[in-house]
């Protein structure tokens, strides 16, 4: 078909255009030639157009089941539902790279369009940086990992990995990529500011919303990924410290640090070097994240696609990071701080600690993720870095961060006096202390013996033991620090509302609305803090008080776990879309009252490349809706067929997966259970007798994570809304800069 050729050559033309954009804009910086810069901007736009064309061509390949295309063959099949055909674009390596560059080129076009009349001095280098990054990805797509590689004509495809066939999995990668890619824009402006020796406020004021946007999408991308893991992977958890999860967390942490420290530069002209460094780090870590996800250098659940782009990425990453660092060092004199610090007890220093901890956690995660390589190089021993060590090493610092979240907003800029501290911190600190005391008196003996064991471990130099003993204190500390932070945020709102009521005589509601509306950035930030506290609560509750059990049951049996009675009512077999499965029907009771009926499914996704299996599967599927008995027995016959084929082929001819059933307790009348999930997944189901092995988790408070995510989204939206005050600041900064140049 013509679309394949169109896509293939489209990518090539896009490469030529973006390469020219990089060269021409670089020449424009030297020659100050207006025409060259115009040509560069136009070719970057053209490049975007051709990338869109290529992406559309690949989508057409998916929609028309063009299995000559290797990429379509591997990630789609005829039976694959339509949304997953469309989403299969980012199911594998080259398609993901294509999506990356598509987003980046789109953002570049937007940057060019919005800066047509301003920032003219910065634009040539900005265009060059964007152009070079686009060109790098297009080189990979053209010469290393083409999505348009053709193979023999094939009747049907392998299909997308079943675990990826999930609504959240379809939107999680694009969301994450929006975040990763978005950081290219502040990075390009930072580099341009350095290169042009205009390292004032302009670059970050211009890119403030870009940074917030990317931070937001990376954050929600991570949360969506956790949610996907929780409802899809069936192990009852949401975060496994998988290398690729870590790779997305690291740039998010450094970006969070940047969002805070940039405020100090705005207000005080301090930390200029640090801010540039943070942007360089964030962008480099984004590239590193893509590199980890896509190169398979560290084996991981996310390595759904692995191949040979590792070396190219390594070189690019090195050039980006060390090149940017060298430029920064060259420009150090420009970045001298105008700083003066009046007191160590001030918001400036609390922000400095906040940055230290955020970057420290990012560095810890990086260090632990790469430790297996370090260990192998130094001692020759291979080790595994699983969740326990990440949790134990990071939790103390996360708690310190939570503490600083409370301190930051309330401590004064410049200098906090004793009376100021008393006025601001008395109420929140009391709230935290009450929660801590309350939790202590709930189980005083446990905490006291915990202390004893901790000291014994410390005395015997048992490091792992000491970390382990600390665990019992974390939930109480989290809840108490969380109460402290909520107290500080509450106080901020209360004071603001009070001031407005006194000044303007407004009602509480009006005062609140106007307060937030007039200071979107500040109060949006506070709302984000509340979201973070809720997420901390959810993590603490669900990891400390989680209950779990494994039970084999036959239909009709009842099993009791942590106050829930589950009755295994029965099961039916099903052949749908591209899978067959045993659906177990379970009734859930609490205190004799039926609270939910659950359906958890054990699925097999047959490999359609085996014609026998394919035909039998399609036959069974076609019987659906007819005589139930005939249909059930047709599906049941697929199981022995699969076993037989597997014995013959000597390998698996199906991919198993489970559909989890979750009952969330959200009733306000059962406060101790509020936010709790009853989480049920079948380990196996016998298709003949229906005997099944169930794995059950009771996850207290886990829903607070998703509530927190929702609040976080709300806060971030507030902060990113257009704000006339921010616009005036930006216009004034631009005017100041233009004047300085003239």
């Amino acid at each position, binding site marked *: 078909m013509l679309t394949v050729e169109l896509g293939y050559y489209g990518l090539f033309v896009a490469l030529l255009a973006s390469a020219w954009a990089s060269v021409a804009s670089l020449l424009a910086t030297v020659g100050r030639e207006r025409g060259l810069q115009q040509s560069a901007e136009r070719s970057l736009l053209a490049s975007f157009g051709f990338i869109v064309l290529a992406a559309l061509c690949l989508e057409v390949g998916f929609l028309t089941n063009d299995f000559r295309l290797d990429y379509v063959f591997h990630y789609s099949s005829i039976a694959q539902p339509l949304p997953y055909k469309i989403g299969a674009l980012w199911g594998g390596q080259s398609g993901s790279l294509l999506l990356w560059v598509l987003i980046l080129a789109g953002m570049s076009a937007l940057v060019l369009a919005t800066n047509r009349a301003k920032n003219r001095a910065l634009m040539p280098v900005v265009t060059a940086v964007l152009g070079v990054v686009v060109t790098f990805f297009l080189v990979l797509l053209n010469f290393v990992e083409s999505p348009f590689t053709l193979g023999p004509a094939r009747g049907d495809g392998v299909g997308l990995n079943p675990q990826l066939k999930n609504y959240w999995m379809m939107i999680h990668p694009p969301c994450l990529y929006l975040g990763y890619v978005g950081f290219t824009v502040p990075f390009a402006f930072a580099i341009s500011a350095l290169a042009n020796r205009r390292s004032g406020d302009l670059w970050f004021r211009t890119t403030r919303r870009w940074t917030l946007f990317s931070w937001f999408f990376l954050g929600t991308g991570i949360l969506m990924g956790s949610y996907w893991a929780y409802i899809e*992977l*069936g*192990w*009852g958890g949401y975060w*496994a*410290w*998988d290398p690729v999860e870590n790779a997305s967390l690291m740039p998010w942490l450094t970006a969070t640090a940047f969002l805070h420290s940039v405020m100090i530069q*705005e207000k005080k002209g301090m930390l200029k070097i640090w801010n540039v460094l943070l942007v360089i780090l964030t962008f480099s870590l984004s590239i590193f994240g893509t590199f980890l996800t896509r190169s398979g250098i560290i*084996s991981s*659940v996310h390595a759904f696609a692995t191949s040979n782009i590792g070396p190219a990425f390594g070189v690019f990453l090195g050039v980006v990071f060390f090149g940017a660092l060298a430029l920064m060092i060259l420009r150090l004199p420009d970045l001298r701080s105008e*700083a*003066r*610090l*009046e007191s*160590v007890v001030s918001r400036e*220093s609390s922000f*400095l*600690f906040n940055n*230290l*901890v955020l970057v*420290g956690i990012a*560095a*810890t995660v990086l*260090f*632990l993720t790469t*430790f*297996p390589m370090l*260990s192998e190089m*130094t*001692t020759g*021993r*291979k*080790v*595994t*870095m*699983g*969740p*326990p*060590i990440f949790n*134990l*090493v*990071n939790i*103390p*610092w996360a708690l310190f961060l939570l503490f600083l979240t409370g301190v930051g907003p309330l401590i004064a800029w410049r200098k906090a006096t004793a009376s100021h501290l008393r006025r601001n911190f008395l109420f929140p600190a009391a709230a935290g202390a009450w929660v801590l005391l309350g939790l202590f008196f709930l189980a005083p003996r446990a905490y006291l013996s915990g202390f004893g064991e901790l000291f014994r471990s410390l005395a015997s130099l*048992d*490091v*792992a033991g000491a*970390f382990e003993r600390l665990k019992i204190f974390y939930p109480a500390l989290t809840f108490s620090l969380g109460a402290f932070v909520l107290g500080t945020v509450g106080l901020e709102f209360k004071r603001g509302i009070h001031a407005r009521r006194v000044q303007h005589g407004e009602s509480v509601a009006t005062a609140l609305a106007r307060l937030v509306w007039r200071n979107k950035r500040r109060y949006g930030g506070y709302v984000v803090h509340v979201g973070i506290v809720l997420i901390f609560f959810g993590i603490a509750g669900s990891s400390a008080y989680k209950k779990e059990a494994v039970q084999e049951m036959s239909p009709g049996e009842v099993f009791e776990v942590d106050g829930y009675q589950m009755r295994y009512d029965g099961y039916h077999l099903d052949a749908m879309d591209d899978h067959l499965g045993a659906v177990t029907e379970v009734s859930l009771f609490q205190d004799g009252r039926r609270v939910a009926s659950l359906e958890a499914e054990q699925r097999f996704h047959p490999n359609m490349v085996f014609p026998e299996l394919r035909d039998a599967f399609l036959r069974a599927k076609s019987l659906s809706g007819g005589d139930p008995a005939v249909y059930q027995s047709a599906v049941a016959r697929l199981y022995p067929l699969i076993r037989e084929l597997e014995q013959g082929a000597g390998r698996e001819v199906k991919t*198993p997966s489970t559909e989890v059933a979750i009952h969330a307790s959200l009733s306000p009348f059962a406060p101790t259970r509020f936010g709790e999930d009853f989480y049920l*997944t079948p*380990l*196996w189901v016998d298709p003949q007798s229906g005997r099944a*092995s169930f*794995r059950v988790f009771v996850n207290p408070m886990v829903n607070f994570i998703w509530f927190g995510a929702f609040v976080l989204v709300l806060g971030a939206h507030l902060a990113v809304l257009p704000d006339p005050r921010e616009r*005036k*600041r930006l216009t*004034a900064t631009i005017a*100041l800069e233009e*004047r*300085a140049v003239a």
Partner: protein
Amino acid sequence: MRRRAILVLLAFLALAGARAAGDEAFQREFDYATRTILCDCGCSPQSVHDCACGRAEEMRNEIAAAIREGKTGAQVVDGYVARYGEKIRVAPTASGFNLLAWLGPGVALLLGILASVLILRRWKRRSATEEAAAPVTPPAEDDPYVARLREQLKEYE
């Protein structure tokens, strides 16, 4: 007769108690082993206890059988380490070179905090001496337009 009945009852209770204790010991050793050993399914680094794949189910059965034979959890773990090497532990032991991973980040962050405090104090000293040396009036703007812009900027802060 009655004494015999009591004796039988006591024996029964003792047996049940022993069995419960046995169950408890089994669960303790089983938990220790399954939470320490890595599932070798090759997905994400998850312990046999947590992993949701079919391979984890097989490994759980293997480990349960070994413990029923009378091995302790630690012995089962040692057996796996002897067979597959250190990497079969879901996290490295806190000893030798691995201590760097366990303690390094904490030490580094503490040093970071110390360094920050020192830097902050130096900044403070510097601004104190600068303030003493510098004239109190801000440097005069030669361009009135720029001066006005600066004023405006200040207002918005």
